């Protein structure tokens, strides 16, 4: 029991330096970004200027009614009830009823509108974030954990959402009430007002001390939440491995560590932010006491009346209440800003390099592809491709061959401009690739990539991804051509079978067939097959090869394949090793060269013979 009592004080203390350090690890940012972020949020909010003004008007009305109501009640008591004037009272009561109704209505309207504005703002931010993500270059995604990015779209945005809803109204009405109260107080006694207002510097100091910490802590909390999200996402997608390797305990343990980090940051963020209302309360009470004390001394000297003291005590309460509200709002604002900052972080990531100014549309694509002295490296010390040069003519099939890690995939990435070469140039139809609009280039290409990604939706929708305006007949025709038609028709709902997010209930081979159908539908000028045929069973593959032959006809095709058949029938074979193009030619030529390729072939044949 003693332990349980002591426990809250046993959390590891976090110093400001530590917090800054852990924040620096993720991203360098200016200390005064707070104002910048608030400004950005404001910019989003003010997209709904018209409605926002209406809300402000309503807040103004409701604040006025809130002040008027008690005043009229006081009048009713002093002037009518005391005098027993029932007729006059009835009139006043009608007036009051009107005031109250206006009060409630204005509050209702402001809330209705504000909810819409706040959610619209969040919606805009969320969609913009997503749209921005679409424009980011591939390397950005290769470096991030998916779950961590997802946390920004959900957890961080929700944080902003819940704050915007109440904060704007609260802040405005607090300021209005504050101004009104100070006015009345000044009227009653300037000296006592001065004493009451003395609370403000103390409050500012205290708030500064607290928010310096909470600001950082909230950021840390959101970051830890993001990390946890990333970990959950990763381990859930990898369940199969975890289960088959019986590593549940291990991931649970690692989860615990991250969970603990989140708890620590959350604990301090919440504890410190919990100080704010307490501090306000304390200052409130203190000013209470000071007013009573000073007022008492003044009253003894006959400088003020007891009545003024009593009223003042009430007003000082009214004065600190909006301050208290403001301070509280400031706190939630901090946590929202922490969330918003993480969202803006992504938005400030530079987009995929814009197309060059002189980049042009490709009306048609004949299919000349040339690499001239192309090099590529992710990081400076690691060359992935070195001085690659080759040319392909329209309609040719180019097979990329070589040990894994030789650079085959990188060639495809450069050709489709997922990455830009670090040296040399890639040409299509004689035009430098960087002088062609990306969208224009890709609209002439179709891909069947290593991982055959399917989206949640029907089979039909998934195939139609290749060309969105394709008719049902065209979709089914493409599926038939890819030999996917027969298995699709066997599914309970045929083309309308809904695929789950992770493509459950459909085999890896079937996924590939769908990916091929998708490419078929796209009807490209340039076809890229990245190990596409590797997990399709041989029975189907015989048919697929026929279909691919049709598909490849008249189109330049780049194929990363391991099938002897594909390689043998290719017009050109590019043999890569360690990022270099070591041999080039067709099957016969390469065998005659008696080099690396011939070695590879013999290796396989020998293996087949010795089985």
């Amino acid at each position, binding site marked *: 029991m003693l332990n349980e009592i002591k426990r809250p004080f046993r959390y590891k203390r976090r110093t400001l330096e530590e917090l800054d350090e852990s924040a620096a690890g993720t991203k360098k940012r200016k200390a005064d970004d707070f104002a910048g972020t608030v400004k950005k949020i404001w910019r989003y909010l003010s997209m709904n200027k018209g409605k926002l003004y209406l809300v402000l008007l309503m807040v103004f009305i409701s604040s006025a009614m809130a002040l008027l109501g008690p005043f009229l009640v006081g009048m009713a008591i002093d002037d009518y009830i005391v005098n027993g004037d029932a007729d006059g009272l009835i009139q006043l009561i009608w007036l009051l009823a009107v005031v109250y109704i206006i009060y409630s209505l204005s509050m209702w309207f402001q809330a209705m509108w504000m909810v819409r504005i706040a959610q619209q703002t969040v919606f805009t931010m969320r969609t913009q974030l997503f749209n921005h993500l679409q424009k980011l270059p591939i390397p950005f995604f290769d470096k991030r954990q998916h779950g961590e990015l997802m946390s920004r779209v959900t957890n961080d945005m929700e944080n902003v959402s819940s704050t915007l809803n109440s904060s704007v109204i609260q802040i405005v009405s607090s300021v209005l009430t504050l101004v009104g109260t100070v006015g009345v107080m000044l009227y009653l006694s300037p000296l006592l007002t001065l004493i009451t207002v003395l609370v403000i510097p103390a409050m500012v100091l205290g708030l500064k001390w607290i928010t310096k910490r909470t600001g950082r802590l909230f950021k840390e909390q959101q970051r830890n939440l993001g990390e946890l*999200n990333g970990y959950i996402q990763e381990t859930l997608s*990898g369940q199969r491995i975890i289960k088959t390797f019986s590593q549940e305990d291990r991931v649970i343990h690692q989860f615990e560590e991250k969970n603990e980090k989140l708890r620590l940051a959350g604990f301090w963020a919440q504890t410190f932010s919990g100080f704010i209302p307490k501090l306000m309360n304390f200052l409130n009470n203190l000013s209470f006491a000071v007013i009573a004390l000073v007022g008492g001394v003044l009253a003894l000297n006959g400088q003020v009346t007891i009545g003024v003291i009593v009223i003042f005590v009430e007003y000082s309460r009214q004065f600190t209440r909006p301050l208290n509200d403001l301070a509280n709002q400031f706190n939630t604002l901090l946590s929202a800003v922490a969330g918003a900052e993480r969202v803006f972080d992504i938005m400030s990531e530079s987009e995929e390099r814009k197309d060059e100014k002189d980049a042009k549309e490709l009306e048609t694509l004949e299919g000349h592809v040339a690499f001239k002295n192309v090099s590529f490296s992710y990081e400076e010390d690691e060359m992935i491709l070195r001085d690659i040069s080759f040319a392909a003519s329209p309609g040719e099939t180019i097979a990329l061959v070589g040990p894994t890690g030789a650079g085959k995939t990188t060639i495809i990435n450069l050709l489709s401009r997922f990455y830009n070469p670090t040296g040399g140039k890639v040409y299509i139809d004689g035009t430098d690739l960087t002088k062609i609009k990306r969208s224009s280039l890709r609209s002439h290409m179709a891909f069947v990539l290593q991982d055959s990604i399917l989206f949640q939706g029907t089979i039909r929708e998934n195939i139609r991804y290749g060309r969105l305006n394709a008719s049902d007949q065209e979709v089914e025709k493409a599926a038939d051509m890819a030999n996917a038609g027969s298995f699709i028709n066997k599914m309970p709902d045929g083309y309308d079978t809904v695929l789950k997010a992770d493509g459950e209930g459909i085999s890896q081979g079937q996924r590939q067939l769908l990916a091929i159908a998708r490419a078929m539908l796209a009807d490209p000028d340039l076809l890229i097959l990245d190990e596409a045929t590797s997990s399709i069973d041989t029975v189907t593959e015989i048919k697929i090869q026929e279909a691919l032959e049709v598909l490849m006809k008249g189109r330049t095709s780049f194929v990363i394949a391991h099938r002897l058949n594909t390689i043998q029938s290719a017009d050109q074979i590019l043999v890569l090793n360690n990022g270099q193009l070591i041999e080039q030619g067709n099957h016969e030529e390469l065998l005659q060269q008696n080099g690396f390729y011939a070695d590879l072939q013999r290796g396989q044949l020998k293996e087949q013979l010795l089985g």
Partner: protein
Amino acid sequence: MTKITSFLTPYKIAIMIALLLMLTELAVELVQPLIISYIIDQGIQQNNLSAVLMWGAVLVGCSLAAFAAGVTNSFYSSHVSQSFGFDIREALYKKVQEFSFSNFSVFPTSSLITRLTNDVTMLQNTVFMSLRIMMRAPLLVIGSVIMALLVNPMLALVLVISVPVLILFLLVIMSKAGNLFKSVQERLDHVNNVMQENLIGIRLIKAFLRGKHEMKRFHQSSEQLMDKTVSALRLIEVTMPVILLLMNLSILVILWYGTVEVNTGGASVGEVVAIVNYATRMTGALSIVTMIIMVFSRAKASNARISEVLNTDVDLYDQESSKSFMIKKGEVAFEHVSFTYPETSVKVLDDLSFTVKAGERVSVLGGTGSGKSTIFQLIPRLYDVNEGAVKIDDQSVHEMTLKNLRSQIGFVPQEAMLFTGTIQENIKWGNEQATFEEVQEAAQRAQIHDTIMSLPKQYDTILGQKGVNLSGGQKQRLSIARALVKKPVILLLDDSTSALDMKTETKLLNALEELSCTTIMITQKISTTMASDRVLLIEDGKLLDEGSHEELVKTSDLYRKIVESQAGKEALPYAE
């Protein structure tokens, strides 16, 4: 909130302390007017400076006490709410780790993620708020009604009527809002899901120029989230104006009735003033109640979603009779196995029987969707069979503990899934106790050692999400190394060499030769089947044919066709 509240029990004491501290604060607040009246009565009116100073000091002391109580409360409330959240997250995560794959098919990953983070945060905030202000508002309301009744029962009658009406109204709103917030969370799941799909498929989206299409999709799902949130919040926002209106109208009734009473001598002016005052206070407290209602209806929705996960029956677990069992030989047998994936109607395996002898190397060949991968799911018991039995060394896998069974099987899935961390950490997944030498040995066997050594940081190279900075073939070999470091008795390779070139594959298969484990390989490649002792031809969940490569070339038309398609006709004479 039956189940969730049990997560609060470990923190009973801290909760009690927090509540006590909150009451202390409340008490100070109530005492203050009394002390001020002392300053006036005993000090100012008696012209007694020392009394003014003394009571003033008491007032300051009380304030300090309240402040101390408030700050301490902050510690306890944070501790309780954060630990509560921590515990729930952990319980959820543990539960999810127990899930079978059929459980997973009920909850999509994106939804589980939202439940584990966003929903828990909701509950956590609710607890924090409860410990600090929740009790206060109801206490103030109840206290005020009692005080009003004491002052003048007749006048207070108005409040006795209007307060229950309001409470009823709030309860109705709360239950309605609860449902609305539930759909808000569901929409949030959906947003999360679109986001996840996009992150996974970003290459494809860029390649097919579907950015705009995806933006539209996200726009829609984000819009739905907005609309649901707006309608839920709007419902909640109605409460405040309604409460104010009703309470204010009650005040008017009190005023009117008060005048009548005052005129007939039934009440004094002071009593009317007092009751009006109490009514005003209650209005303030009730507006806090509105906020509480909102937080609680959100919490109610989140609670339901969390409980849904916690209360899911895991349909795959150890039997009481399950026991640890050392696999000595490694003989795998399927006896009349039939299997249908949960929530589907198609029989994937149909009365399938075969045996793989200890130490044997067997290839499984078959059409797409023939059930090859399913066979592999059943051996480490990722799913339970519907009929028949899967046996290892004559022992049904059903009778072995899951952990025991799986720890003796090396499994290399089709999709080479790697985790964030270093290469060494990833290999060590197979066996945490493995020494660095054993890790290297496994990497060498998997033909990935040289590649690793050519990386600047070698075994300490950090792999990103899904190990993107490696090529497909490298990932595959790494995941093979991960299985080999386990030194498994049974090794399952699910088309795990598809991205490897012929030379590397050959080396790999030769290296596997050195391990005396039973090896079952799903493959499409004839080069692999030729390197196997036996080939199983599977079609439509049934065993079509079996035998060595040489036998099948002679007996099976289908097999011969496959060989022809891959190696060309000229390969056949060689083989024979």
